[in-house]
């Protein structure tokens, strides 16, 4: 009877909250700098923007590690990660080091609290193994390969779901990797026949992502994408396509206006509208060289627009907020 009711679709808000609430609320924050956004969950799409070397990939990796770690004891999400590497910068050894650092930290904390020690080490090895088995990686060298990979990831998604441990995060690093290739693709066909243009490719990507998200109900799938800066501050586009796009968006989206005004030309928006409408959160990362060899990074939420700018450094276990 219960199943039948559920299949029929209609339910009260209270029922729905009771059903999906435990799965979406009460999740630990993925990254300390993300703490300002209260509750990221499976229906959100986060874009991490920034120039090369502003710790975008590191940010995504930190989030992935938190997602992989078990809930019990490690305060993680206990879920799988799908990682689409379009930039070719993923380093599996770095992932292992980060996971080990988190596991060691936890083991040390427990030891200091006076719990037994010998069992913990074995436990740590096991945790690492489980986490490594839950991380799925693929590499793409063109937009078509990317769309193919998105299509074939459905099977993985469904398989993982039947095992009980579904994917919680889908990472794209970086979404703008094939921007120039797609823009230079010859435009053919009319409205009914989409060609491999930037617009067409992004439409297909967004459609596939929505499909994947639908398949991973009820937890949903948090999409996190990095977006590398394509334009330097003095690059002028020949047909000024991007600035025309920006103008359009400014009328639609007032949050967007703030994006472009605050960050200036350095962060001008260049992705098609279909992608921009898809994302729900945008974080801007920047790097500043501090004294000595220490690099200081800053993180600022552009959507939703928050006034605070967090500054952080990176060490072995993750991001360390600096209070200034």
């Amino acid at each position, binding site marked *: 009877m219960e199943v039948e009711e559920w299949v029929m679709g209609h339910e009260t808000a209270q029922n729905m909250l009771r059903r999906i609430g435990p799965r979406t609320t009460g999740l630990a924050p993925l990254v300390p700098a993300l703490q300002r956004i209260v509750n990221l969950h499976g229906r959100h799409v986060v874009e991490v923007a920034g120039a090369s070397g502003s710790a975008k990939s590191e940010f995504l990796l930190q989030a992935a590690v938190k997602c992989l770690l078990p809930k019990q004891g490690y305060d993680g999400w206990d879920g799988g990660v799908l990682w689409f590497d379009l930039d070719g910068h993923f380093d599996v*050894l770095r992932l292992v080091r980060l996971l080990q650092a988190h596991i060691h930290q936890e083991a040390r904390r427990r030891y200091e609290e006076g719990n037994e020690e010998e069992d913990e080490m074995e436990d740590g090895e096991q945790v690492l193994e489980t986490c*490594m088995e839950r*991380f799925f*990686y693929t590499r793409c060298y*063109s937009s078509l390969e990317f769309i193919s990979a998105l*299509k074939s990831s459905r099977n993985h998604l469904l398989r993982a779901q039947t095992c009980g441990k579904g994917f919680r995060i889908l990472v794209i690093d970086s979404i703008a990797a094939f921007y120039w*290739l797609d823009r230079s693709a010859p435009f053919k*066909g009319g409205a009914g026949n989409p060609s491999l243009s930037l617009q067409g490719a992004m439409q297909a990507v967004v*459609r596939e992502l929505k499909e994947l998200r639908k398949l991973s109900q009820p937890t949903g799938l948090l999409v996190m994408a990095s977006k*590398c800066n394509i334009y330097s501050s003095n690059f002028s586009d020949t047909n000024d396509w991007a600035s025309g796009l920006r103008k359009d968006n400014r009328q639609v989206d007032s949050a967007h206006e703030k994006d472009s005004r605050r960050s200036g030309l350095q962060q001008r928006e260049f992705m098609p509208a279909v992608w921009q409408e898809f994302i729900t959160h945008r974080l801007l990362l920047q790097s500043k060289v501090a004294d000595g060899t220490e690099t200081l990074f800053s993180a600022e939420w552009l959507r939703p627009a928050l006034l605070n700018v967090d500054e952080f450094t990176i060490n072995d276990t993750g991001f360390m907020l600096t209070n200034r």
Partner: protein
Amino acid sequence: MPRLDSPGLFSLTPKILADFAAEGILSVEDFLLAHNPNLDESRTEARKQAVVDILGYIDRQSCGFRTSARMLQEIEARGERYLPTGCESLDKLLEGGLREGTVTELVGGSSSGKTQVCMQVAASVAYRCRAMVGFVDTCHSFSATRLSHMLGGLVGGRDAVQRRVGAADEIGDAMKSIMHYSIFDIFPMLSFLNQLHTTLSVQVQSMEEKVMRLLIVDCASSVISPILGGIPGHALMVSMGIILKKLALENHLAVLITNHTVGGEGGHPKPALGETWKAMPSVRLLLARDFSSNLCHATVMKHTSMACNRHAAFQITRTGLRPVF
């Protein structure tokens, strides 16, 4: 991407193909990009089967998903290594040398020592690792004489009379494993790199034959900068970046490229080729030379897994790079 009828899927009968063609879907590419939402909840059983088969074909064609546990096993099985640069201070800076599977870029103005580093790395990898080295020369800066001097420095002994017996053979052997290619244009460059990728992918490893483990492009920016400006130029640049990355990641080469500098804001020199290219290499080293002390300084500008802004110094001598600590 092929036409729909070419993979030879049995479920794609002429009738089904005609159905797809009526919707404008002629190739696998069209199938991927088609925004027909009821493509999946199709009308007939035959059509459903066709969609499943095409998805299966796409799945087989894509490189597939691997778990990170398997990636780690693969790395351990392959024994992914760091290639020594032949200069201890640079090795220390890079924590072991050039890593296989990554693209390293040297940035520096004219006569900052880029080519010297490239040749030293080539000599070191050819002699110490006994591997093949591809040296793509785009601006006539390669010198076989200079390379033999550097190899002499590695083998030991400044002159022929001081060297031990057999040293000359070792130098000759190392010289033979450095392949030199002169390419001056973007299109021959792209076709060469693609060809190399194909050759290395089908190559069967044998015990006697040396394998290529290092590819040097000196200087990469001089074939790219003439075509930059506008969308097609940028697309060509990205294509070159992608094929270099493919060589590094799929063929497990260490790739070393060089880039020149241009005047940036306020007259300060900055690396050429702009923001898009900046995201391409995994490691970027800035070279600067102090002519009064004859010291070269290398600074880590970008590194995907290590801290940046660390320095190392070396001197360029007749027998190669001499580390200065």
